[in-house]
């Protein structure tokens, strides 16, 4: 083997690494280094600016003794669970109904899908007015003559988080519908015909055959919607701005205000680490099972 070919083969072996290196470096610094730094800050007594002393888990104790943090965590679970369940359920229902060879299907599909084209800020602002008892639904129904009608969830600290769910579902269920509809179109008609010949009723066919066959579509919907749920704090900001009071606070808004507005950088870092651990608790088992399947296969 001549020297030049050895050179070029070595270059070929190194080239991918060299090309990937800058982006890898950027990711390591901007993501993992700062995760480590945040973890470090969370065990210090940092307040206005970082201080590098060690106080153990004091900031975590402080964090979990803060009622606002409990509200934020509870809200995240209420919102994510309801948002996922309702968007998926409604999306599936709409997709099945639209799949019945109805007229003007294209137009209806577009109508249901369009909310997705709006940003959460627009959705939040519009629903803020729709749900305001003095401007929106309640006012309209009252003016129509039903004067006892009450729809003031947005002013009630116990119910306000559900208004966020309503706005989120309104925006995203059409999107779930579109994916399910594509899944439904991909199902072979002959399977359904065969079931009908066997005497299966339509609900049974849907329950036992079609919905199980939609599993891949279901997975995509859930993954995409979970991601929307986690990043949806702009919806909260526009719709309720964390209010009334602090009733619709989310962990992300808590972290921001603790770190940058309340001189509690340590508590903010601790809350960020808690969020990371929550995500990790979901992601790591998933990665683990994925990797194991690969090794087995």
């Amino acid at each position, binding site marked *: 083997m001549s020297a030049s070919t050895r050179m070029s083969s070595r270059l070929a072996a190194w080239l991918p690494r060299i090309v990937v290196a800058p982006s890898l470096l950027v990711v390591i610094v901007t993501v993992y280094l700062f995760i480590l730094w945040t973890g470090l800050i969370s065990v210090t007594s940092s307040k206005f600016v970082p201080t590098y002393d060690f106080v153990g888990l004091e900031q975590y104790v402080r964090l979990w003794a803060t009622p*606002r943090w409990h509200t934020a965590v509870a809200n995240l679970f209420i919102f994510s669970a309801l948002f996922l369940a309702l968007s998926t359920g409604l999306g599936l229902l709409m997709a099945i109904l639209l799949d019945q060879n109805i007229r003007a299907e294209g137009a209806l599909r577009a109508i249901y899908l369009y909310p997705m084209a709006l940003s959460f800020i627009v959705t939040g602002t519009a629903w803020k007015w729709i749900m305001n008892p003095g401007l929106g639904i309640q006012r309209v129904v009252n003016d129509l003559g039903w004067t006892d009608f009450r729809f003031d969830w947005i002013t009630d600290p116990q119910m306000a988080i559900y208004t966020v769910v309503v706005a989120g579902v309104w925006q995203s269920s059409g999107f779930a519908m579109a994916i399910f509809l594509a899944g439904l179109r991909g199902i072979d008609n002959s399977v359904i015909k065969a079931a009908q010949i066997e005497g299966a009723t339509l609900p049974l066919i849907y329950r036992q055959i079609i919905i199980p066959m939609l599993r891949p579509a279901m997975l995509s919907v859930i993954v995409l919607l979970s991601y929307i749920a986690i990043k949806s704090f702009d919806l909260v900001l526009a719709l309720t701005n964390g*209010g009334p*009071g602090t009733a619709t606070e989310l962990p992300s808004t808590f972290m921001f205000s603790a770190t940058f507005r309340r001189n509690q950088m340590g508590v903010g870092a601790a809350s960020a680490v808690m969020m990371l651990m929550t995500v990790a608790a979901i992601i790591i088992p998933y990665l683990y099972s994925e990797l194991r399947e690969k090794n087995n296969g």
Partner: protein
Amino acid sequence: MSKFIATVLAATMLVPVAARAEGEIEVLHHWVSQSEVDALNVIRKELEAKGFTWKDSAVGGMSGANAQQALRSRLTAGNPPGAMQFLGWEGVQWAEQGVVRDLNDLAKTGGWREALAPQLLPFVTSGDAFIAAPINMHRQNWVWANKKIFDDAGIAVPKSWAELIAAGKTLQEKGIVPVAMGDEPWQIGIIFDALLSDVNGPEFYQKTAIDLDPAALGSAEMVKVFDTLREVRGLVDNNFVGRDWAVATGMVINGEAAMQFMGDWAKGEFLAKGLKPNQDFYCFATPGQVTSFQYLIDSFGMFTVQDENVQNAQTALAETIMDPKVQKGFNLIKGSIPARSDVSVDDFDDCAKLGYQERAAAIEKGSMQGAMTHGFAAKPEFASVFSDVAAQFFVGNMSSEDAVKMLVSGIDNAR
């Protein structure tokens, strides 16, 4: 505080700042609305008349939190602006990090300490150093009222919270919203701050909002404050969620609502509609046995820089800000009153004059105190506990006793 950070910041600032025009100073602030910019231009023009260049760096949004963030990154990058607008404890906290220029020489020659109310000094000095030049003073505890509504209902300006609440109930029966406000914690905080002092006297405000005395925080007087706050909640309509303060002011202006509790920035909304104080609208302090004056100030601090041209510009800017003539011109536009107590307010409107008189009286009686909601009493980590509890109490059904318990444990937790 951290020596490490101070060293890093100090070291990075030694990097020579090249490519700066002679005598140019960059001013970082969060004033972006029209009247704020117009007011700022008074300082700017005066500075430019002295031959210096003003480089404007406005970072608006989040009541100054965005500008604070910008400052942090600028400081860590070793490129601090020449001057920065400070709110609350910010200036003092930066001074503790050793990055703020000491203006003591200027303060001595200019007699700044004598010209300012002694209550302001904790926010513009740090140890022996004079760290910021205050330009204006707002009062937080004003009530803005629609005069026609008051006159039609035969209501006089209330002298106590009991009278105010009774007047509110009368108005409510007539179908008028007594109090216009939004549900944002700071809007609720303005009422809470006022009640702390008005219900139990300025000493109680000192013990709770400033000294964080556990006994006072958990006392029966504190329960009384929350009880009164609950009564005020009864005067607010149910559509208050998500209402901006200026929208609430609009409700008072067009007669939908009778009163608003708001700082004197609300005055601008009335004046912009061509309304006159005491003819079309009332301005009066929140009522108490001892009338309190809960202030907030805007001040400008200078950062330590090596470039002499910038240093000269800093000196000129600080002197300009403390110039009585500039203070007058600035505050005529901004709607506040001069931070200096020795500037005459003869050309100001009636509300500003009333505020000026009540400030002088309040300094004597010890009832001139920093407004907690705007960061001029307890440090932010404690002030935010007050605002959390007051806001949750206001929008929900919590009992006053539970609120007090929550307040005491919250403050302990933040210590």
